[in-house]
């Protein structure tokens, strides 16, 4: 994987981390409800786990698909899904439904998984995933138990890097909002990242279609 891809996974983690709907806002709320910072920090771990699982599902589905489906077909299919999901998100304000503030580790993991999945968090990585050596591996499948392991390690690293940057950014925003800024920020600075997101998905779809290597 090239530097560009690593950077993309990292930046995508930053972007997901900033989005209040995917973590930090809930962490802040739990801290405020319990009136202690530990509740903010405690919430970050299951959130990162749930986020990682959601991303990993997409990463490994793409990796498997690369082994089974001709590259051109897969690229067109992915482009269609990305673009279509983007259009849907652009026009629909539908949001995942969840009711509940009294959440434990398991609840928060599931919640984070649902939020990341519903936002199509993993889908944004698809254009980069399609450019990884996994594609090459599929072309030379006959020679490579070793390269398959390497490939899995690399994909896991991708998930890890992305999740780490998500975790760090969510954590920093959560602590800063909880300790310093306060929630008045929500009224001023919370603009519709989901709408921006839907446009990003559409662009990602187009990029996927034309970005061959």
């Amino acid at each position, binding site marked *: 994987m090239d530097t560009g891809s690593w950077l993309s996974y990292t930046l995508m983690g930053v972007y997901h981390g900033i989005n*209040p*709907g995917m973590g930090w*806002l*809930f962490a*802040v*709320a*739990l801290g*405020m*409800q319990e*009136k202690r910072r530990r509740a903010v920090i405690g919430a970050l771990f299951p959130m990162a786990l749930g986020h990682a699982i959601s991303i990993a599902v997409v990463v490994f589905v793409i990796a498997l698909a690369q082994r089974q489906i001709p590259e051109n077909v897969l690229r067109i299919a992915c482009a269609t899904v990305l673009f279509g999901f983007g259009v849907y998100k*652009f*026009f*629909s*304000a*539908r*949001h*995942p*439904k*969840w*009711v*509940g*503030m*009294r*959440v434990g580790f398991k609840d928060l993991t599931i*919640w984070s998984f649902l939020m990341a999945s519903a936002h199509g968090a993993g889908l944004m990585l698809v254009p980069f995933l399609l450019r990884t050596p996994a594609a090459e591996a599929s072309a030379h499948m006959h020679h490579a138990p070793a390269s398959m392991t390497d490939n899995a390690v690399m994909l896991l690293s991708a998930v890890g890097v992305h999740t780490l940057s998500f975790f760090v950014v969510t954590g920093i925003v959560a602590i800063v909002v909880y300790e310093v800024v306060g*929630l*008045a920020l*929500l*009224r001023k600075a*919370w*603009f*519709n990242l*989901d*709408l921006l997101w839907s446009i990003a998905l559409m662009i990602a779809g187009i990029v996927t279609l034309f970005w061959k290597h």
Partner: protein
Amino acid sequence: MLQQWKPDPTFYPSPKMAIDAPVEELAYVAAPRDDGKPDTMCVVDLNKGSDTYRQIVSKLELGVRDEIHHFNWNACSASLCPYAPHPYIERRYLVVPALRGSNIYILDVKDDPKSPKLIKTLDAKEVESRSGYTRPHTVHCGPEGIYVSALAAAGSEEGPGGIFLMDHYNFNILGQWEVERGPQSLSYDFWWHLGYDVAVTSEWGYPAMIENGLNLEDLMERKFGHKIHIWDIRHRKNIQTLDLGDDYQMTLELRPAHDPTKAYGFVNAVLNMNDLSSSIWTWYKDGDDWGIQKIIDIPAQAPENPDDLPPVLKDIGMIPPLVTDHILSLDDKFLYVSCWGTGEMLQYDVSDPFNPKHIGTLKIGGITKSHPHPAAGPVSGGPQMVELSRDGKRLYFTNSLYVALDNQFYPEGANGWMVKADTNVENGGLALDPDFFVDFGESRAHQIRLQGGDSSSDSYCYP
């Protein structure tokens, strides 16, 4: 629908922040009628700088003998709740349930806030078949959609009443909310403690017990509601029932603390069967359980001339206070209590929810008394539906309870009015604004909603 780029500016993360919201400029007032003409949604101008200040600036006709009741916004500050945030929805529709006709009207106030437009009607048949309930009553905008309570089960006209959900984008009825309702059958109000994943529901009576006036036989047999119920919102199941005892009839309006970290709230019991007093109770979280405790008794009063009493009270010879509504300020400090029978609005400091202090009284109307209003002289009815501005400084209230009950307790007429009182939020105290009297004529005047939100429209997930 195209989405917004910024959260609706009328949403506030916490009740504390909502206190600093701008002053309201309009009120929407439900005005049922008893004369075969349609109920109307009236808009009252509250902008002091306006030429039409204190006037009804528009009336939108809805159904005949519909009894439009506790309407609310399609969306509110609960949209900011952290577990399913969707702050880009707009507060622009009023969801108006008809307690008698069972229709639900959706009004759009965006283009011209002074002149709401009817954009959708869910007729009684649709409401009943989709929700399983009839006689919709209270509406609250919740974190995942619109919640509506209803008095009875569709078809039976009796229990169980309950809650159903509506989609907050297209206003389709999604169906019954409860999964395990436990012992509740009578139904009335509901609200929640979002920080605790707990909802609270209350009890009034089935349609036949109220629609021809309070059924006195049922009352003597103590068949009206005297319990409240605690629910697990996540699993939609009844987890505890708190019984006030059947001495207390009609447990109506639920006013939980606005601060989501506080687990207590206030409910009124309209009639104590032993002495006709009304009472206010505090429910509270007590370890893993919930408890309830009476904190205020409001006694019945003797009439100056017993001959003036309406037939329903002649034999009894006393005027019950008939506390039928109350409102809690957004800082959870002041509780305003409507005594519809005795014509008083009482102010309590409830900073300590178990030790309320009575700090203010205002008199207007009342059975046989008719304390006058400075701008209008003697008035009919008494203080009933009460609403408070978000900053807690302006208290608005109207005089109609429910057409059939108005006629029973105020048989000489219950022409609608709305008045305003100014409150002292530092030291307590309240006084009628001597110039503010909105005359609804032969319409009744019931629930008030203030533009942008008020002290019973929004729920908050952050302290």
